[in-house]
């Protein structure tokens, strides 16, 4: 069974009275444990595709099935719960909550799971140790470098142990060295922890680290 199955998906946005087609009949399959790099020019719909797979947006037409769950069949509430269990998101600009410490940021997704405060804290710490930030638990995002912030964000994406990680240009805002650290980390998560990863990137070097590369252009894959 494919981890991610996008079948004949159309997505168009409505702006004023204008319809903007973004994806037109797109089909993509990602096997379990695969690591796919998604490339394509700006505005080609990469983020849109990621949003559909992650269940934070609905396709205009077509099917998106992730680990056997058809996302179109889930309502708002069920969809939110499904996301919290099955998907980890990593954004280009980290999107950490500035008023929470690294540890609290990572604890955040666990607030939606039934567990004791101590258990929550233990898991968050483990996730931060995994990304090499076991000594930065009490730091606020502004006290961290961009690379460190992105690693906190990765720890947050990991902490509920989702099978699928969706990363939208995770190295887009980082210097070479920090980008490299993040890429090594993603590779490790894929190899050792068997996470299925779908990563959008503009950087061909980053894309090469993935096991597979797909190009999106004018709404279709090539």
């Amino acid at each position, binding site marked *: 069974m494919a981890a991610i199955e996008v079948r004949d998906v159309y997505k168009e946005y409505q702006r004023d009275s204008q319809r903007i087609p973004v994806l037109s009949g797109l089909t993509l399959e990602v096997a379990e444990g695969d690591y796919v790099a998604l490339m394509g020019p700006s505005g080609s719909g990469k983020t849109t595709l990621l949003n559909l797979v992650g269940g934070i947006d609905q396709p205009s037409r077509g099917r998106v099935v992730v680990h056997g769950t058809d996302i179109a069949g889930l309502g*708002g509430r069920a969809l939110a719960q499904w996301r919290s*269990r099955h998907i980890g998101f990593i954004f280009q600009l980290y999107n950490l909550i500035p*008023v929470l410490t690294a540890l609290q940021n990572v604890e*955040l997704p666990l607030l939606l799971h039934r567990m004791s405060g101590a258990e929550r804290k233990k898991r968050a710490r483990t996730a931060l140790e995994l990304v090499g930030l076991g000594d930065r638990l009490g730091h606020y995002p502004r006290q961290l470098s961009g690379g460190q912030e992105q690693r906190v964000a990765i720890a947050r994406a990991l902490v509920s142990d989702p099978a699928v990680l969706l990363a939208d240009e995770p190295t887009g805002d980082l210097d070479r060295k920090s980008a490299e650290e993040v890429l090594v980390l993603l590779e490790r998560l894929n190899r050792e922890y068997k996470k299925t990863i779908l990563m959008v990137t503009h950087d061909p070097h980053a894309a090469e680290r993935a096991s597979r590369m797909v190009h999106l252009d004018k709404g279709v894959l090539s």
Partner: protein
Amino acid sequence: MKLLSLVLVNLGRNKRRTILTLLSVTFAIFLYCALGGVLDTLAESIKVGSETGLVTRNKISLVFPLPLSYRDRIAAVPGVKRVSVSNWFGGRDPNDPHNFFAQLGVDAATYMPLYRNAAFMSEQTACVVGEALFKRMKWKLGQTVPINGTIYPGSWEFTIRAVYRAKRKSFGEENLLFHWKYLDQHGMGGRALVGIYVLELSDPARASAITREVDAMFENSAAATRTETERAFQAGFISMYGNVPFVLRVIGLAVVFAILLVAANTMAMAIRERTSEIGVLKTLGFEHGTIFRLVLIEAAVITLGGGALGALSAKLLIEGSHFNAMGFLPPMTVRWSTVTAGVGMAVLIGAVSGLIPAWQASRLRIVQALRPAE
């Protein structure tokens, strides 16, 4: 970390803004309750008068007196048990012009017929003072109190022979009562003019008939009378304030409304600044309802916290001030119902300022929230 700690963290984001908003709600509710307290106090003072006791005064105005000769004629009206006299003295404390309290020249034997304090009754210049006033002034029994007359000019001296405790809080313990006879001899040259007659009835059911009979009796005299229940008399006293109660109410509501707009704007701003964070929370799986509650609780902490603070401090500070408008009013009261109404206003502020941003935040579509502002 708990879900509610998110509320605290959010309140702490911009501490100055949070505190200023909270204080503005505190201030508005304080003012609302303080103004309400003035109305409460007026309402309490109306209760001073009983519905069955009657007061007869000069028809033209309270400031004009009546002759003492009316007394026996009023007493002869069937259903009237006892008639007493009382004159507003209106003196000032020579040591402190801002220290006001009421002094009344009364006929003690009829004004307080159950009161038998030999020391007071037998001495011409004796006075009896309310316990609250006695304590506030740190007086001692036997002490002589100097008072400057205004309506009855000259320097007056009264010797404290007794202290009374008011059965009805609204009667007040801020009064100084002395002998009307002394006032007549030394202030009116024996002209025997009476401020008001206080009628006690043996048959309260006849109150309105007695009212008419008394006033009819003096209709063609030099000084026509107006007789009404004590309560109505007090209410008439209050009516000297005209539209003030209405204006106070409007001001209180206007302040609440103004602060409501301020609070609503602040909350809307606070939430708008967090749009992308709310998008992140939703991406992580936080449901609409959770987001809604987080925002609403945040608004509630600010407005209810500020409101409770304002309402309670109004009760404590205003009742603690012992202000009683020269003894015209019983001591300032802020009724619990007014405190509750103040907190209710804070709930209203919280609901209006919190519900809209909460609803908007919970409805926010993730893709919109996460897109960098264009």
